[in-house]
């Protein structure tokens, strides 16, 4: 049997009108790999995650998850645009945590975690509750399970959002600048949860982040995006200590100066 | 929908009316409905003028009037917003004569509808005046203007732009409300429709035409107000840029 990569982008292009956000992107991510995506704003890095989550359409190329096309499906040996059922089947392998949490404000932490397992996976309420409780425990939020999002701090909300995404048992987790909306003192608790996740699970993780220290320590690979292309990628220690590309050097210098 | 889209729909509506009025089954209704439409327009225009005057007067009284005037304004606004337009019309037409005040159906219609919409308009005017930033008032005080000067020269011109869209809706409401005058025997569009319906029983033809005519009138009002809105917005922008 051929071992497919977990995720692969093949010549993926994304445009907004005349603006090309991603230009013929090729990126392959292995099972269990932790990839950090960095780069200046407007470089298209968030778009990569959003396309993989099917929040954005793509204008060219193919995205595959475990070898299966995401936005297309095979019919009579040809790739045709995916229908709803196919998209939902492939999408089930992917979970996402957002910069602005996007918890459901009218549901408690526990209800947020239970909603999709019950409604999408068809779990019984007891099973869903057991699973959710366990995950809230993991992110250190079990004592706040009956709180509404507005009663939680940003860091706590983000931890619930992580538990909510995990409750769907995804194979790939996407983290989109998950600490950017947080007050500085709350960043640590969220990163701590992600670290734990990396250690305990054989999850494939893709994160867009501005936390260079965390990327260096946590990721297996760093991809530096600039104007819709991967300018440089590599093993984090090498990348941060000795960037090859002029743009990466500039970017790292700017980030370091900002402290 | 943008102004162009609205104009397109208006054009289409008028074209359909034009086409239908040429057809055999519809032809006979055209003169009567035209008379009715003229009456509807006349009442709409007169009541609109009255409504604007009543609204501004009531709003200014409620905001800046001495206590008795303020209470009068509040009572007027609450009573006319709190009861049905039809009840108000009947009251003016049938009950006032008991107190020795008699008026023609037309006068009662204009007065009733004008005052009814004016009461809603008063809250629109008041809201728009309140929405002018406090700093503008403070600037007029710093320039030692009187309150009347400040209102006329500084506050109302700014409030005007904010008033146009809600007044557009109110004028549509007004047009629609005029259909009620048919119930105090005034020969407007709705009245003619009922009359001809009773004599000919050609219900579909009559009411289709009538609906289309009202639609065309509403669209014309909407387009007019949008144009006004555009002008006012440009005026303010130009003033800001200068």
């Amino acid at each position, binding site marked *: 049997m051929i071992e497919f990569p977990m995720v692969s982008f093949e010549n993926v292009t994304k445009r907004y009108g005349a603006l090309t956000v991603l230009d013929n992107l090729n990126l392959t991510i292995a099972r269990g790999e932790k990839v950090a995506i960095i780069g200046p704003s407007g470089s298209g890095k968030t778009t990569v995650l959003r396309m993989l989550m099917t929040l954005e359409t793509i204008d060219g190329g193919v995205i595959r998850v475990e070898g299966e096309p995401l936005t297309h499906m095979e019919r009579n040996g040809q790739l045709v645009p995916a229908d709803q059922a196919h998209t939902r089947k492939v999408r089930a392998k992917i979970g996402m945590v957002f910069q602005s949490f*996007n918890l459901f404000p009218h549901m408690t932490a526990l209800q947020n975690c239970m909603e*999709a397992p019950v409604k999408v996976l068809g779990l019984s309420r007891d099973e869903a509750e057991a699973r959710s409780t366990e995950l809230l425990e993991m992110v250190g939020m079990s004592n706040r399970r009956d709180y509404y999002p*507005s009663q939680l701090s940003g860091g706590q909300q983000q931890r619930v959002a992580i538990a*909510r*995404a995990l409750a769907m048992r995804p194979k790939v987790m996407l983290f989109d600048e998950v600490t950017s909306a947080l007050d500085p003192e709350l960043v640590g608790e969220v990163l701590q949860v992600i670290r734990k996740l990396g250690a305990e699970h054989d999850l494939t993780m893709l994160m867009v982040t501005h936390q260079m220290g965390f990327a260096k320590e946590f990721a297996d690979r760093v991809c530096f995006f600039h104007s819709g292309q991967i300018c440089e990628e590599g093993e984090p220690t090498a990348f941060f200590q000795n960037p090859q590309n002029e743009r990466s050097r500039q970017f790292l210098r700017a980030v370091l100066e900002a402290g | 929908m943008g102004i162009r889209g609205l104009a397109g729909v208006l054009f289409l509506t008028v074209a359909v009316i034009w086409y239908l009025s040429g057809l055999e089954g519809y032809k006979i209704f055209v003169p009567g409905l035209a008379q009715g439409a003229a009456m509807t327009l006349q009442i709409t225009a007169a009541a609109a003028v009255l409504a604007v005057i009543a609204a501004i007067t009531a709003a200014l009284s409620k905001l800046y009037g001495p206590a008795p005037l303020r209470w009068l304004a509040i009572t007027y606004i*609450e009573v006319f917003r709190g009861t049905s337009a039809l009840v108000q019309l009947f009251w003016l037409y049938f009950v006032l004569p008991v107190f020795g005040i008699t008026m023609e159906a037309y006068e009662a219609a204009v007065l009733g509808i004008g005052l009814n919409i004016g009461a809603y308009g008063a809250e629109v005017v008041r809201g728009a005046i309140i929405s002018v930033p406090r700093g503008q008032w403070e600037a007029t005080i710093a320039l030692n203007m009187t309150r009347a000067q400040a209102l006329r020269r500084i506050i109302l011109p700014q409030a005007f732009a904010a008033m146009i869209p809600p007044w557009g809706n109110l004028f549509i409401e007004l047009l629609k409300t005029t259909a009620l005058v048919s119930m105090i025997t005034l020969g407007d569009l709705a009245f003619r429709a009922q009359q001809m319906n009773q004599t000919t029983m050609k219900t579909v033809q009559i*009411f289709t035409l009538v609906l289309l005519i*009202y*639609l065309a009138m509403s*669209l014309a009002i909407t387009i007019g107000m949008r144009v006004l809105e555009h002008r006012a917005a440009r005026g303010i922008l130009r003033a800001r840029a200068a």
Partner: protein
Amino acid sequence: MWDWAFALEILPTLAKAAVVTVQVTVLGFLIALVVGLMLAACRVMLPGTRFPISLLVELIRSTPLLIQIFFLYFVGPSFGLTLDALTAGILAVGLHYAAYCSEVYRAGFESVPRGQWEASVALNLGRWTTLRDIIIPQAIPPVVPALGNYLVALFKETPLLSAIAVMELMQSAKIIGSQTFRYNEPITLVGLFFLVMSLASAWAIRRVETGINRRYKR
């Protein structure tokens, strides 16, 4: 000029008619709430219906309710839809306000942040499930006061049903007037009834509004 004895005498008749007025209001508003929500939901979920629905809504909002009542009552039979006056009246009032309510709901839907839809996609919730479980529960509470205002507006337009001889308050007052040649007591009483009910509902809506605001600032 004002005869208290006569006013008392006609009160029971008017009270009976008031029941019909309330009945029309409640049933009509139920139709408005349900149909309005369906229209708004279709607009969000089925892009193909957006234009026809907005055209229909504009048509309904641009023409007088009175004409629409006549239309349903008189034109209906030509299309095999024969309704008694009360049913036709309730239906007309309900559909008229459904058009207004659909715009209110639409504003409510639009006020829900995009992120809520995106989070639902990320959790692989179906679109209709998202609408029902995630969007509607957030969209409705903020628009309850606006819906309440339309309830009051609908209530105040129920006298139009007297045009097709539905025995509601106005019709009852008119009949009393034509039988006794005394209009001031019945019509004034009807006016007072509307005034009291409207002021009471305005007060109730304000209470609900503050209640909702408080709950949402939790």
